[in-house]
């Protein structure tokens, strides 16, 4: 059966300054699923997300979102097409309160958006509790939750989430992952994750990026069985 693809990258190349970071990134993100990008440090996963977002424009190749080319658009236009982004460093506005951090993301203050916000706050009760606290004073986990909630409040059809487990204590990681799992029922997610255990629990399908190229893909279930592949691209030997 043909799945409908929300996002599609074909032979995307990108540079950061004079560094050639992405050589050949090709993958598809089916609607309603969680697609995980795996790969070692420095493989180009973060750059891939930034390239989709237009923060680090692609030099070659095509990126289509809902069948429309977006590779030459500016970041804000891409965001307005319906893509939410949770960057690696979470991008919390430190001097703004939690509430302001969420409000600045809300394009409209209509019912739909408010409903979404309420749902996100149910998911992360901490945010409600610290509503008037500056974002910079939150703990790492709370920042991550805020960043995810912020990306969710608009009617985004696709969320790009970059390593939500990074630098968090195991229990917090668990909480964040749970919330992503719940979000999965409402939106499509493209996730970058190094924590394989976590990725395998919430991911439907995966792509492995190595040295700026997509080198392997498949269903998450298959990967769990394939110890050789795992070690080759993700492990240390």
């Amino acid at each position, binding site marked *: 059966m043909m799945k409908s693809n929300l996002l599609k990258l074909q032979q995307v190349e990108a540079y950061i300054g004079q*560094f050639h970071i992405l050589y050949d990134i090709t993958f598809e993100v089916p609607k309603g699923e969680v697609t995980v990008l795996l790969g070692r440090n420095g493989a180009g996963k973060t750059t891939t997300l930034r390239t989709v977002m237009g923060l680090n424009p692609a030099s070659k190749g095509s990126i289509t979102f809902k069948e429309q080319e977006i590779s030459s658009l500016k970041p804000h236009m891409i965001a307005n097409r319906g893509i939410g982004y949770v960057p690696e460093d979470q991008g919390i506005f430190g001097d703004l309160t939690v509430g302001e951090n969420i409000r600045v993301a809300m394009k409209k203050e209509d019912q739909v958006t408010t409903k979404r916000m309420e749902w996100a706050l149910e998911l992360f009760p901490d945010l409600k509790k610290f509503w008037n606290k500056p974002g910079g004073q939150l703990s790492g986990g709370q920042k991550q939750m805020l960043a995810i909630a912020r990306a969710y409040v608009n009617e985004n059809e696709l969320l790009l989430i970059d*390593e939500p487990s990074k630098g968090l204590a*195991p229990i917090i990681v668990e909480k964040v992952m749970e919330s992503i799992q719940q979000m999965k029922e409402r939106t499509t997610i493209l996730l970058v994750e190094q924590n*394989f*255990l976590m990725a395998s629990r919430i991911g439907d399908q995966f792509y492995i990026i190595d040295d700026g190229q997509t080198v392997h893909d498949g269903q998450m279930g298959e990967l769990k069985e394939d110890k050789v592949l795992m070690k080759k691209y993700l*492990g*240390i030997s």
Partner: protein
Amino acid sequence: MEAIIQTEDLSISFGGHVAVDSVSITIPSKKFTSIIGPNGAGKTTFFNLLSGQLSPTKGSIFYKEEEITKLSTTERTRLGIGRSFQITNVFPNLTVLENVRLAVQSQKKVRYNMIAHFRHFKQFEQKSYEILEKVFLLEKADSKAVNLAHGEKRKLEIAMLLALETELLLLDEPTAGMSLEEVPAIIDVIKQLKQEDDRTIVLIEHKMDMIMDLSDEVLVLFHGELLAKGKPEEIVQNETVQSAYLGGMYDEKQLT
């Protein structure tokens, strides 16, 4: 085994996030040590602490048994700690030779000489050429650094490090952002360095084959902490390390 650099309880935190957490290690003199660890483990931060780009919130650093925790980058370079950067950081509009010569001349007494023409310092030029030969960059001596390919810039970066004639070399991901064809050449250069006995090399890398091949000892950082250390073979076998890489630090039973 004589230690060249030692850290005691070294920690640094950025706004509540502890990037390096009480790391106490000893790096043996004249050996090849590698530091590995997943993303965000604090490797580069650790290097920044050693070379003085950052100052620790807690703990101390010793170089040849003398405390250097409070010294500046410049002072540490003069003592003998040289480092390469993850982002190539050469002088773009100077020639390759000039780049290296700047490094050579920094160790000498002519630093403030503003009268003599630089060509009068033949010995520096000679030295620079020798180093360029070592890193296989001789034929590019007169090109501007900005015109080099990325891999060549990396080599130049290493050449400048060599020119400093420091006893300790800190190499931060020398293969990062390189095309696949360029990697072997860098490995060759590093191998050659390893063969010169009077140097201590510390390497941060992700390319495991390279680490296995070169290292005498491997240190594993995880969440800013020292997770394991040992010979490369031991590290590969180490279960904790394996699961750290695959994200299973907290094993599956605990979660379900």
